[in-house]
């Protein structure tokens, strides 16, 4: 059995206790909501995209330490990136979570930084859904923003 310390790394607990970019953005910023039907957690991602660049991002909702910290770290990483860069970044993350879509190439040179700490989640398959909730919701928001 993998040790609990593989899951609850210090950087993860830090983002859980002190989430970054928590809050809301007012329209015209767009937002998407994601649910984890297994546990009832929900997350809302607010995106301010202009000229193909993510100018600002915030999140709200309730969830466990893994979903909250993963989303917090994600918001830090994507702010200022272009929409295309963000999509590639999400693919790289989902690849790490063993959820890569074979049809879409993954750029393995992308450095996930602190987010690498979430690699331990893979050893607890039930929690992969927690780690990816914010990221899937972000993808929906991106689609919404490019409509």
């Amino acid at each position, binding site marked *: 059995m993998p040790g609990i310390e593989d899951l609850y790394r210090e950087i993860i*607990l830090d983002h859980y206790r002190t989430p970054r970019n928590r809050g809301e953005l007012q329209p015209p910023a767009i937002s998407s909501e994601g649910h984890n039907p297994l*546990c*009832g*957690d929900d997350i809302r991602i607010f995106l301010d995209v202009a000229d193909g660049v993510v100018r600002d991002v915030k999140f709200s909702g309730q*969830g*466990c*330490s893994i979903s909250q910290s993963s989303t917090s770290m994600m918001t830090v990483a994507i702010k200022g990136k272009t929409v295309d860069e963000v999509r590639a970044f999400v693919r790289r993350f989902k690849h790490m979570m063993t959820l890569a879509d074979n049809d879409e190439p993954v750029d393995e040179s992308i450095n996930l930084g602190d987010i690498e700490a979430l690699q331990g989640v893979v050893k607890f398959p039930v929690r992969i859904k927690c780690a990816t909730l914010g990221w899937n919701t972000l993808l929906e928001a991106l689609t919404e923003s490019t409509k």
Partner: protein
Amino acid sequence: MTSAHRDFDSVAIRRDFPILETQINGKPLVYLDSANTSQKPNIVIDTMSEFMRETYAPINRSAYTLAANATELYEGARNAVAKFINANSSQEIVFTKNATEALNLLVNSWGRTNLKTGDVVLLTHMEHHANIVPWQMLQQERGIELRWVPLTSDYQLDLTSLETLLKGVKVFSFTSMSNVLGTINPVEKLCAAAHAAGAIAIVDACQSVPHAPTDVRALGADFVTFSSHKMCGPSGVGVLWGRKELLEAMPPFLGGGNMISEVRLDGFTCAELPAKFEAGTPAIAEVVGLGAAVNYLNDFGMTSIRQHEIAISGYVIEKFADRFGDDITIHGPRNPELRGATFSFAFRGIHPHDLSQVLDQSNVCVRAGHHCAKPLMKIIGANATARASFYLYNTTADVDALADALDSASDIF
């Protein structure tokens, strides 16, 4: 009812359940998820395995001896279930895939026959999704009205406006015990109120049949549903009990083999009860296993099991209060006599998923989540809770192990 002939000895009972001897990483298993699904005693495992080794054959359709023997065991299980809940006859016992299917059968067969646009169905705020969604599906199709009995602040059904709520109601469908709160509802009283208003009463008894004596005639219900896998039997079998005259008046739910008396190119006629509601090959070995589970529970008597769980509940409530005080919130009644041994709780602000993950390090198995009762979760103001549920094989040592494991969670968060 069969009279008990075995003393209620927790240590001996635990030896009946081989899985409780399982160790993970050198630590024993502390199984506290029986409200979800119960573990299986040797007698159920052995009966099913012997049946498949020695007697397995189709039921109800072949003349050879093996098939006759299999049919006898299958129908023997039906008789055992009928006696267990004091049904008038085994014809009133319908085996389904699970309790969810039993409720869907009622909504689709009784509901579609008897409910039209504008008719009212009364439910409660403490229902499992299985007693909500099938009605909502009928609502979408047919425009029936759904009404809800609310909760009091001490997690009981608020019955102050029951008479008003029941006005014009055709069906009152409710749980006998909440799978989240542990609250035991006054089933007899609710059935009587439904009948006084001209409604039928459906009781989702999944959480009570495994834990306390059930007498469907004394309850005064019209239909009662429950599942095998929560009462030491295998998964794959649910039970629908209904009053014979109601079941006879209902059209079949699923069509196919076994449920017909005659099929011609221009139509069919139904088989007698209960075959009318058992289309296709059923879960034969599983039903036989359920029969063994019923006999196993009868060995102790359901009154002893209920007494044991009242004692465990009292111990949980005392232990939690002594050890954690205000750091733990039990979402449910505090009086062990008014509740089953199923405890949803919040602990020191730790998310239930994180809590269950840490408890798992000590092999303490609890459920975390919404427990298939999302409307109720919203009403009690929780997205998710952790839930520890106890059964005949749990002891105060399991409660102590839970409390120790909870303490270790505080070290991380």
